[in-house]
């Protein structure tokens, strides 16, 4: 039997992905410092503004939907059949 492609199951590869991923994050923030002049809005002047904005937005969305789901909206799959 042909051996399956299992690259993503190996812990050492996941470790590599994490390292490269974090490096990419750093690069995108560092790259912003190289760009000049294009800051028409006040918030553009804050370094890494969009990085923070993206992260915080997602945390808020995740937590909000978690709470909505847990306390109100999530029901068992048979809910409508009962």
């Amino acid at each position, binding site marked *: 039997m042909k051996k399956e*492609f*299992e690259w993503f199951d190996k812990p050492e590869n996941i470790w590599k992905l994490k390292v490269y991923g974090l490096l*990419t*994050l750093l690069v995108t923030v560092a790259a912003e410092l190289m760009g000049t002049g294009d800051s028409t809005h006040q918030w553009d002047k804050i370094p890494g503004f969009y990085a923070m904005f993206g*992260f915080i*937005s*997602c945390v808020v*969305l995740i937590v909000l939907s978690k709470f909505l789901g847990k306390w*109100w909206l999530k029901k068992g*799959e048979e809910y409508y059949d009962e």
Partner: protein
Amino acid sequence: MTSSWIPPAFIFLFGALVALVLKGRVKQAWLLFVPVAGFAYVHYLPTEASFSLSVLQYHVDLLQVDRLSKVFGYIFCIAAFGSFLFALHVKGNVEHISALIYVGSALGVVFSGDFISLYFFWEFMAVASVMLIWARRTKKALDAGYRYVLVHIFGGLILLAGLLLLYYDGNPLTVQALKGKTLATWLILLGFMLNAAVPPLSAWLSDAYPESTATGGVFLSAFTTKTAVYTLIRVFPGWEVLIWLGTLMTLYGIIYAIMENDSRRILAYSIINQVGFMVAGVGIGTEMSLNGASAHAFAHIIYKGLLWMSAGSVLYMTGKTKCTELGGLYKTMPLTLICCCIAAASISSFPLTSGFTTKTMIIHGALDQHLVIIYFLLEVASAGVFLHAGIKFPYFVFFAKDKGVRAADPRPNMQWAMVFFAFICIFLGVYPKPLYHILPYPLVAEEFHAYTFMSVIRMLQLLLFSGLAFFAFLGLLKRTETISLDTDWFYRKGTKLILFVVTGIASLVGRGLEYVFVKTIPLRLSAFCERPVTTFMTMYYRFSGKDAGAIDEFQSRALPEKVSTVPIGIPVFMALLFLAAFAYIFSNIF
């Protein structure tokens, strides 16, 4: 009237008729030929082309061509080609024929010159599309299909009510931008909003689309909501309420998509989210944002179709859609995974994909109008798109925990369809010029530059840090075997409540009526008929103020009916009296 041109819808409707008699390879070739012919035809349609019919002294204008209708005409034909290629192996006529009618009706709406024909095509779309849900042949699909079609008929009736009011207010029924905020225009807007899946009128989408067939979902994702986007651009550009509703949609879709377990339902909520961007663009109403809404609809149809194709491939090969049952498929479905990731990148508007070159137009449009709050909310939504459609969907289906499900990539025709759509996603991201060239306001589009160093860096920051949030909070995103309540609760559970209340009231009223008309009145009447003289005498005594003792004494004596002689039988006399009364009542009423 130029009779040399026909509405593009007719090509698909004729195609459906011919497909009925074709079989095998010839039918497959025909299904691919019809969209190609449609595309070429739309391309050569001149703006002065028209086609009208006289119905009951009224001219129905079935063909109105301009740049806006052409953009949607092109993309509907491309979407139809890709979707038919994906569904080419499907046996039987039901899905193919209804899909042809569905696409034809969508084109009919887009090229309609007046609201009457628009309305008819609108309803055709609902009826044709429900077949793609029923064709799944499960109890769930059947039920969801019924709800889907009922909701759409309800929406259609709201639209019709608006159109009738518009007509009686003395307005022409030409499809054009409506300015006045009257009951008529609000009703028309509501009808369009229902098809655009604006919450709270959106639950039909997330309820029904996931129950469609593996191939039907691809068709459904493209036409109904985008036809509604077209009508909004055409009829309600610059209506401010749409800015807020659109922004609400983007966030609503994300929050539900994060909660969902069913992979195809995640994609359904993601449609609501993406259409939100377009609706907001329509509301902003500048040339830039209307361009953006059209371009985004164009790009969206392709990448969302591709996402539905990859989910459809997984359903087709494994029979499963729930995230809790899937995972680890990257090992055996590489092509599906790659195409899915390209679509996921596009919907997240990664640079070099079609989402980046189109969605940024809408967001740019918001900033141009100094709508700072809207701008930031749309950016929150952009981050959230990557979260739910960009990572969550591929991650839980293809990676996450290996659930032991093994399936290969699907059939060749399905693979080719995915490659075709993936190619367009990248092509429009790298070289958006051809798309910008066909937009409603080409001059504005040509001045727009999606790619600047900072725009790319900022987008990458936004998206990659959203990805970081996903993995940092993976614990909170753990899948559960649940469904999420949406506004369809009101007609799924709510109807039971209403039924309970209504039957409760009805039984109370019934009992009351029974008491009055079955028990009390007949008993009194029969007592009266038996002893009319005594009854009259008693009443006379009461009214003339005799005391209770005198009445008792009178009643205790022998009753007059028993001791006196009456010329005719009392019952006959009473019957005559009633007949006379009835005769009098009827002769005066009728």
